[in-house]
């Protein structure tokens, strides 16, 4: 068995030494690992603690109040109201039957619906959103274990459908969906607050581990150039025209000629901002029709949803900026400006209108079949005489005309602070022959948006300043400090002041003595131009009647455009659109004088 010989003894000594070496190596390894642990726990501590905290904390957002939208008179157009979100925490419910009974009664929900949510095993189950504060308070006062009432903000529009297409509305997360609510999202939306609670890996909150809280920051109030009085009155006029003329739509825009501020923008039919997802009657009818066309049950449902969304989008469209149209005779202002600016025509140039003009192989008629006879250019404008404008257009020439078209900004979008502005639809410069040029000269064969027309005309009559139409004036903090005053680009010198003077004169003549005399307002100097354009396809009998007016004619400050889409009965712009602007000016001009609007 075990014996100790010399080898053994020698090896025993070796073994002792080597055991010591082995042990020392192990200890050194452990000490090095100790250093590694120390390194991780001291120098990497911050990094890993941060990552771990991220992992452990569950965030719960606290909604921030959205900034209000306030008009130039200080009236709040978009506000917030406090609503409640009711939810249940399964593990904390003590008496499920009472909870189910109370919640279904107070919230007007079916017992079955509430029961399903109360009995579902989840960390937190939402029962209902956007509950009136009174109801929420009542439920809270009952102090039911496991029932949570969280306050929340909901967008509220005190004036309902007023300026609906301009203001826009917000969605479920209080984010802007259309209109100014979208354009100024970054200002209006606040910074969400956070409640950070520690949770385990399954996301279950740990009791008694404390929570951290970051307070929400309210959004900035947006001050806009809209004036509620003008907006309301314009809406009233538009509705009146809409009903009496049984039109497809009526748009009215009121703009400051010199800085592009928009005081009113109406596009009836408008919809209720507090209930934007319900189709208004006008769109309902179409809805029913499409439904009847469907036969298959499932397909019908699908189709219905699809068409409902389409119809909603249609209902939300702002015709003033989202749609283009052929401006018709109002565009003669542009032709006149180009003609005067290029020297192709003077106000005194004499023309003769036989009731038609032949361009290449086409015979283009004047609206007055018998012709206007001999007239100078001033009278041609007053008479809105097509052959004269065609002649002037041809005199300018396609290339030159296209240059002016570009110079007047007509090719580009206005840059208005509303989403979805439509672009101009225009011929390619090399495709403009004489016939095209002739039709362009009196406002046909191309399309622009109403706001584009207005902005360019404003630039022509304000001395050559191409302004950017806009609503946003400034963003203000909830404590009243101004965060930002918005500025908008202006390009100067699109036309000489001389041409401006002439245009003012001749457009005032249109209202004083010409086709726009229905736009005349007692006591004020008003300039303007009417238009009656047949919509495509021609011969459908559908017209767009419009009138563009501005005042005072010698030093324009304010401009209004009224467009009546597809009126029934009389469809001449001078007869149905001009009176709308006249009525508007009769009230608005004294009002603006009174408030000292500049």
């Amino acid at each position, binding site marked *: *068995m*075990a*014996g*100790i*010989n010399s*080898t*053994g003894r020698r*090896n*025993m000594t*070796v*073994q*002792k030494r*080597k*055991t*010591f070496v*082995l*042990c020392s190596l*192990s*200890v050194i*390894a*452990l*000490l090095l*690992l*100790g250093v*590694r*642990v*120390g390194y*991780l*726990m*001291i120098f*990497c*501590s911050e*990094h*890993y*603690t941060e*990552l*771990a*905290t991220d*992992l*452990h904390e569950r965030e719960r957002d606290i909604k921030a109040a959205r900034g209000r939208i306030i008009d130039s008179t200080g009236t709040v157009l978009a506000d917030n109201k406090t609503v409640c979100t009711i939810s249940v925490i399964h593990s904390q419910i003590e008496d499920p039957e009472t909870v189910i009974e109370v919640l279904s009664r107070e919230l007007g929900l079916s017992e079955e619906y509430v029961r399903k949510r109360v009995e579902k095993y989840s960390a937190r189950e939402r029962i209902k959103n956007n509950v009136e504060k009174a109801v929420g308070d009542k439920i809270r006062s009952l102090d039911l274990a496991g029932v949570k009432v969280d306050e929340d903000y909901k967008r509220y529009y005190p004036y309902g459908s007023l300026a609906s297409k301009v203001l826009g509305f917000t969605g479920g997360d209080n984010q802007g969906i259309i209109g100014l609510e979208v354009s100024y999202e970054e200002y209006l939306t606040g910074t969400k607050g956070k409640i950070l609670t*520690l949770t*385990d*890996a*399954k996301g279950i909150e*740990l009791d008694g581990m404390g929570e951290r809280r970051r307070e929400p920051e309210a959004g900035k109030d947006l001050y806009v150039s809209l004036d509620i009085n003008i907006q309301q009155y314009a809406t009233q006029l538009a509705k009146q025209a809409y009903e009496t003329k049984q039109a497809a739509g009526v748009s009215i825009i009121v703009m400051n000629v010199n800085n592009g501020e928009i005081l009113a923008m109406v596009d009836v039919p408008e919809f209720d901002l507090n209930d934007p997802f319900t189709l208004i009657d006008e769109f309902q009818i179409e809805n029913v029709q499409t439904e009847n066309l469907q036969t298959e049950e499932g397909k019908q449902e699908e189709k219905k949803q699809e068409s409902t969304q389409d119809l909603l989008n249609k209902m939300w469209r702002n015709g003033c900026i989202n749609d283009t149209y052929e401006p018709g005779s109002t565009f003669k202002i542009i032709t006149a400006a180009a003609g005067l600016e290029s020297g192709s025509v003077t106000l005194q140039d004499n023309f003769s209108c036989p009731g038609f003009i032949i361009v290449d192989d086409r015979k283009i008629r004047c609206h007055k079949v018998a012709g206007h006879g001999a007239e100078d250019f001033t009278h041609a404008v007053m008479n809105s005489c097509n052959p004269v404008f065609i002649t002037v257009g041809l005199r300018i020439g396609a290339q030159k005309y296209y240059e002016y078209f570009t110079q007047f900004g007509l090719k580009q979008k206005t840059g208005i602070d509303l989403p979805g502005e439509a672009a101009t639809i225009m011929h390619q410069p090399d495709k403009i022959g004489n016939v095209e040029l002739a039709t362009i000269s009196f406002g046909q064969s191309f399309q622009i948006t109403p706001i584009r027309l207005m902005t360019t005309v404003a630039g022509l009559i304000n001395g050559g300043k191409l302004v950017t139409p806009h609503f946003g004036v400034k963003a203000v903090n909830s404590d009243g400090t101004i965060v930002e005053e918005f500025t908008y680009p202006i390009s100067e010198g699109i036309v000489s002041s001389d041409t401006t003077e002439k245009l003012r004169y001749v457009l005032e003549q249109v209202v004083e003595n010409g086709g726009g005399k229905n736009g005349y307002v007692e006591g004020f100097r008003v300039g303007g131009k009417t238009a009656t354009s047949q919509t495509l396809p021609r011969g459908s009998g559908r017209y767009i009647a419009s009138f563009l007016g501005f005042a005072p004619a010698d030093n324009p400050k304010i401009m209004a455009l009224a467009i009546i889409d597809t009126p029934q009965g009389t469809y001449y712009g001078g007869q149905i659109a001009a009176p709308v602007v006249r009525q508007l000016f009769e009230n608005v001009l004294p009002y603006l004088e009174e408030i000292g609007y500049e």
Partner: protein
Amino acid sequence: MAKRPIKFRSSKHNMDYVLLTVVLFLVGFGLLMIYSTSSYEAAVEHNDSAYYLKKQATSTLLGFVGLVFMTKFPYKLLQKFDVLAIIVSALLIIAVLTPLGVTRNGARRWLNLQFTSFQPAELAKIGVIIYLASIIQRLECVGKNVIRTPKGIAIIFAPPAVIAGLIYIITSNLSSAIIVMGIAIAMLFVAVPDYKWFIIGAVSITVLVFLVVLYVSGADTTDSGFRLARVKAWLEPESYSTDRAFQTLQALYAIGSGGIWGKGLGQSMQKRGFLPEAQNDMIFSIICEELGLFGAMAIIFLFIVLIWSCMIIANKTIDRFGSLLVVGVMAHYAIQVILNIAVVTNTIPNTGITLPFISYGGTSSLFLLMEIGIVLNISKHCK
């Protein structure tokens, strides 16, 4: 030379109480930490926060019975079982393939003994220690330097290599195979006077590791093998945070968020489901999180004392066999502690190695305590 029986002054020497104290402390601390790390998950999964504690306490109790038994059992008798230990270990590992085998977490490593389960790899470790201690002592007796002949090396190395191979192939338990081979190399290291071969071996392994790291860090591991991907995950844990390096990264979070003083006992966040089965291999990271650098250092210090005590006992023992047994046990502890802490701190790639006396695991506790029993027994016979 005449053989003569050796007289042991057994009655005059007490066992090494420092070692016993350290072990008792580690075991007690281990139970505390197992409760701390597992109670949250245990309460969720088993509806009993002490579920793992109870199981571990039972095997610890059994372990102490084994410990006391081994302190009384004349250890020299173990030498008679040397070959038998290897054969039994091998057979039990093979038995895992029979219907007795139990699969957990996708690995077939346990034997079902009805009332409990048993991991044969743990028995194999002690079996290899006994075999090697015995065979080295026997070879020494045969003649000078027999141990350094190829035949001698083969006799020493072949059985542990077979055992390690079986463990790796049958139970796909790389870490236990590494431990078995590590024990064998350590025991051979102390038995022969040479350094050269071990230094050459160590240097070549270092170079190999370096080359592998170099290769892997440049390689695209999207469709490469499991082990290679593991190495990649080791090098860049934060880019594999959701899959391969998940556990490692969670352990690093735990260690890092502990700071110097820790969050306090029971305050770990990582054990709340983020670090799965924290009571197993990764328990050291929770110790770091709860007790901070201070606690971690204390544990490392206790293991150093443990290993050092083993070294003292080994070197005080006159009996060659006993001395080698202690060296084997020491090597076993040292390898396991070093590898465990290295894995938890992401110093080496992740391979499942438990922390002796502290990690959850019945079979391992039982045999670790029995090994301590043997060492304590031998300590009574020191000169």
